[in-house]
């Protein structure tokens, strides 16, 4: 067995508001429950892997290369993000955190989403604004491809021989297609509750 091989564990995830609203509002609805169970399942599957944490690097969707990666993850975990809470726990076991994203790309994505949300807010509540959504999707898709190239390059250049990477990435990214040429990839998949995160997923990713 070649112990110098760089291994990659890929975890497709759904973005959701997760537990932050629950913490404040008190009500725990089925959608939040499904998201909670998704993360509980992912956590259990990762534990089963018995990864060497001191040789593991974590790459998280949406985390800019900024020098403030740890601060961002901590803040989001404090706000109730189960995704970032899991990462914090893994870091405490010895894993290393890497920034993944180009800040300019992220800001462009943020701007696109803001424009969409403003147009949606001005449209009929039930119908939304299909034109604005289609425009967002077209632009976001192109941007997503650029983001994936950047993230792939980050992983290739930061992951050392003999190390393991754990990549948490939104389901609509196609990062795996780029990385599979360079890494043996194992997938960690438990439950993807599309309907439970409904509008958030459909607006932001589809």
């Amino acid at each position, binding site marked *: 067995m070649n112990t110098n091989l760089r291994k990659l564990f890929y975890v*497709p995830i759904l973005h959701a508001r997760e537990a932050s609203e629950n913490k404040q509002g008190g009500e725990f609805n089925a959608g939040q429950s499904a998201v909670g169970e998704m993360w509980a399942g992912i956590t259990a599957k990762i534990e089963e892997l018995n990864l060497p944490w001191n040789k593991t690097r974590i790459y998280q969707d949406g985390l800019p290369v900024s020098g403030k990666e740890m601060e961002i993850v901590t803040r989001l975990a404090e706000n109730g993000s189960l995704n970032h809470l899991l990462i914090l726990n893994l870091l405490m076991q010895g894993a290393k955190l890497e920034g993944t994203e180009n800040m300019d790309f992220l800001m462009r994505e943020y701007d696109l989403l803001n424009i969409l949300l403003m147009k949606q807010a001005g449209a009929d509540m039930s119908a939304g604004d299909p034109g604005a959504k289609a425009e967002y999707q077209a632009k976001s898709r192109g941007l997503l491809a650029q983001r994936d190239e950047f993230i792939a390059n980050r992983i290739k250049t930061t992951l050392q021989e003999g190390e393991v990477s754990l990549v948490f990435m939104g389901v609509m990214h196609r990062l795996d297609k780029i990385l599979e040429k360079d890494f043996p990839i194992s997938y960690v998949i438990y439950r993807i*509750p599309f309907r439970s995160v409904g509008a958030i997923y459909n607006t932001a990713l589809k």
Partner: protein
Amino acid sequence: MDSSNTEKKWDVKRDAKIFCNLSFGAIKRMILGGVIKEDDLVWHTGMSGYRNAGEQEELIPLFRTSGGNEAKKTDQEITRCKTCLPTGKILVVDDEPDMLELMLRVLAKKGYQSLGATNGPDGIRLNEQEQPDLIVLDLRMPGMDGIETLRHIRQKDAKVRVIILTGYGHPDTIRDAADLDVSEYLSKSFDNDALVRIIGEVLGRPWPSSGRQTGEQK
């Protein structure tokens, strides 16, 4: 029916239709009086409860028995009864007969009306004929796989809810599933209780404003 007869043993063939025509209040009194006990009466094809026509939002507890041919005969009578609504009709498509049979049995036990298909084309045909409320679809099947099956189904049916169940999860099929508007994508390590709970979650959500609805409202 004498609700004071606490010794009475319910029998599907003999009692179910009468049962169904009782008012909600009468059934409720029998439950409170201990005449009807949970798990007393059910039939194996999956009808799970009764609702009075005037109180369709309220579902009373389940009554169960072991099923069998006699029960099936009575089930057909009950299906015609206007005061009965099923909690959901579920189509399971899986090429592994043992897995299919197990899931159908579990779903029936939980009160769902369940149907099975062992390949994609049969699944497509059954969806058109039976209009289930939800499809549990295996991804990896010989011939027409789950994604191809779902593409065919979506050409005619945009509303049916779908749970993908796979032992070979991969981002490619997750993206395909997202494009085909599935409700859930599950890795096959799920146990039966978890699967049934998730089915309940998916069916328990508000129905789309147009298109399919449950039971006799179809």
